[in-house]
């Protein structure tokens, strides 16, 4: 597991977002279902650190799990699933990406996507470069999931 907290909320690298500073945490895990629990734990921990409510934390934990599971289905065996958490005041953006076998975005007609969309405020997917597939979700503090 590669945990790289990037404290770019201080010094010259500080980004201003919505009037506040922004922290970025990057987590890379093997693209295997057994590591989803690590991602869920990290998500809950970061959301709690960002003062999200218990409801928001639970929503985020499920949403990141759903997004990751959607990507794992077509991930290249032995590759890494990368997760980028961007924490701003009152907002968390999570980007999950893998190198996939087919380079196709996840289907939006699935049960998992429905759950993901219901729990995260904004959800989208993108492809490239190459076979890279990415799901990005954004959760604002106090969003009503569902």
């Amino acid at each position, binding site marked *: 597991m590669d945990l790289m907290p990037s404290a770019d909320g201080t010094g010259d690298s500080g980004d201003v977002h919505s009037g506040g500073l922004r922290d970025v945490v990057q987590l890379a895990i093997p693209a*295997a*279902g*057994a590591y*989803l*629990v690590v991602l*869920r734990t990290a998500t809950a921990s970061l959301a709690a650190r960002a003062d999200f*409510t*218990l*409801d928001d934390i*639970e929503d985020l*934990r*499920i949403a990141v*799990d*759903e997004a*990751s*599971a959607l990507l*794992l289905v077509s991930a290249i065996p032995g590759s890494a699933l990368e997760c980028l958490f961007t924490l701003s005041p009152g907002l968390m953006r999570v980007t999950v990406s893998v190198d996939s076998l087919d380079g196709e975005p996840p289907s939006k007609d699935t*049960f*998992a996507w*429905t*759950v993901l969309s*219901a*729990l995260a405020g904004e959800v989208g997917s993108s492809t490239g470069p190459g076979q890279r597939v990415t799901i990005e979700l954004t959760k604002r503090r106090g969003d009503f*999931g*569902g």
Partner: protein
Amino acid sequence: MILRVRVEVTGPHAIVIWPEGDVDYSSLDPLREALMDARMAGVSEIVVDFTDVGFLDSQGLAVILYAHRRQRSSGGRLILRNLNDMARRLLHVTNLTTVLDVEGGVGERPTAAAAAAASRATRGE
């Protein structure tokens, strides 16, 4: 995370399935197999007890929903028992509260705010 599944026979055509751990993308097989075994054995009433389940996602819910439909189609039942707040929340989000049988009912959507209010009421605040 490894999911353990215990099965208890409670009657001639009734069993209780106890998953222990997180039910997610990586751990579906033991639960799916237990439900399939029950189906093959002609069990008419299956209870899935969530006392020891810490996490449930849409993949786990889909397995349960599939088993529920199979039970219904053969005149049997699948009942969910001891759902934690997280699982009940998932049922609300997916609008499955009126589809799946939940022992004691699924209740209102659990929220942290409601839990805090209940706690304050208990303390007499």
